């Protein structure tokens, strides 16, 4: 699609789209990242190295490559895309595609933070809870999760910040339409339109403000996590 054929950039809509995509992908990633981080921190299982590599691959792969692979999976001929097409659902080039792209690219940060948070929780607390008669899932809810909580929230914040700026995988899977135009993609569109300097300034400013605010929140949560684990002993 030639750039000139695209609708004009609406900075407010792009900021809203970015926030929505980042929030949704972080919320959807949370159960997966918590489960993945817990498994990597606490369990030994066959193929662990492979699972870990697959989870972290999107962090080192060029995002465009991740986008192309996602297009293979969610395209109409892909394994998931084909099944969804039969249900009348098409993912590519929609807001949902932007969420999926940001989820896959951003989740490794969440998983890594969750893993570190669970590794930081001494197992002897779980053991005491078990001897007191609490089943493993109850101990997870009452001991492991609350002790890891600030670290998990920090991971979510980090993923949120990363997802806000997701570009490479998003432009491949979600494209550049009004619906999928997040801050990063809107800025890319504006590169070709020197006339819209004010929109560019708004988007850059918003990007800086949101990113810095999330990183400050991340630092604060990290410090809280460390204090929480120093409580005993």
């Amino acid at each position: 699609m030639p750039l000139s054929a695209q609708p004009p950039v609406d900075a407010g809509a792009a900021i809203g789209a970015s926030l929505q995509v980042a929030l949704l992908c972080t919320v959807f990633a949370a159960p997966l990242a918590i489960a993945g981080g817990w498994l990597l921190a606490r369990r030994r299982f066959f193929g662990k190295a492979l699972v870990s590599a697959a989870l972290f691959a999107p962090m080192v792969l060029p995002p465009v490559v991740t986008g192309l692979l996602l297009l293979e999976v969610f395209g109409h001929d892909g394994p998931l895309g084909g099944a969804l097409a039969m249900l009348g659902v098409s993912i590519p080039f929609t807001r949902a595609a932007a969420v999926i792209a940001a989820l896959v690219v951003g989740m490794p940060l969440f998983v890594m933070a969750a893993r570190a948070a669970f590794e930081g929780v001494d197992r002897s607390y779980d053991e005491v809870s078990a001897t007191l008669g609490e089943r493993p899932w109850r101990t997870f809810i009452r001991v492991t999760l609350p002790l890891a909580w600030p670290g998990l929230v920090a991971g979510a914040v980090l993923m949120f910040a990363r997802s806000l700026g997701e570009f490479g995988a998003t432009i491949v899977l979600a494209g550049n339409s009004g619906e999928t135009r997040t801050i990063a993609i809107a800025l890319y569109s504006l590169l070709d339109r020197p006339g819209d300097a004010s929109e560019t300034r708004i988007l850059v400013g918003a990007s800086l403000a949101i990113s810095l605010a999330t990183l400050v929140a991340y630092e604060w949560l990290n410090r809280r996590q460390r204090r929480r684990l120093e409580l005993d002993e």
Partner: protein
Amino acid sequence: MSETFSLALEFSRLRRTISISSAARRIAVVGPSGVGKTTVLRAVAGLASDGTGTIHVLGESWQDSATGHRVPAWLRGVGWVPQDARLFPHATVAENLRWSPRGTDGGADGGADRGAEVIEALELGGLLERMPKSLSGGERQRVALGRALLSSPRLLLLDEPFAALDAALHARVRSWLARRIAALRIPILLASHDPADIAALAEHVHPLE
């Protein structure tokens, strides 16, 4: 089976086999540091351990590695007092004491009174709303003991339970615990260095060397 307690475990990490078998209800395992006293207590509690073999307690089989049988920790009903207390750091003293779902609050058996008695005897009354962070080592150890006692244990596993207590309190708590154990007929397995603790609490001494 007449034994209260019979255990035969091989620990590959310690490169040794430990067997304890006794009809006594109150057993002390003694021996130098690093000999495996804590390891034995952990194995009986059902916690992660590399011990393979058999554990029988009070006529029940808790572990039989030959058949793969292993009763999980949360079904064993032990009161474990770890050496370093391990109070839940995000919970108040009162919440720590009430942690166990086997606990004695609200039951028809006068559980609330037992809770009050434990809190009074361990001198925890003034600490209930405090967080573990703000407690001294001796206070933590008393809370850990109270938490184990209030879980209606069928067996107490005490790992140097008074090590952090000052002398006067140590003597008071020890004599109260000895009376209580005798009154409730709770079997115990005690790991200790202290001859006075062993004399007050145990009827059978099992040396590990």
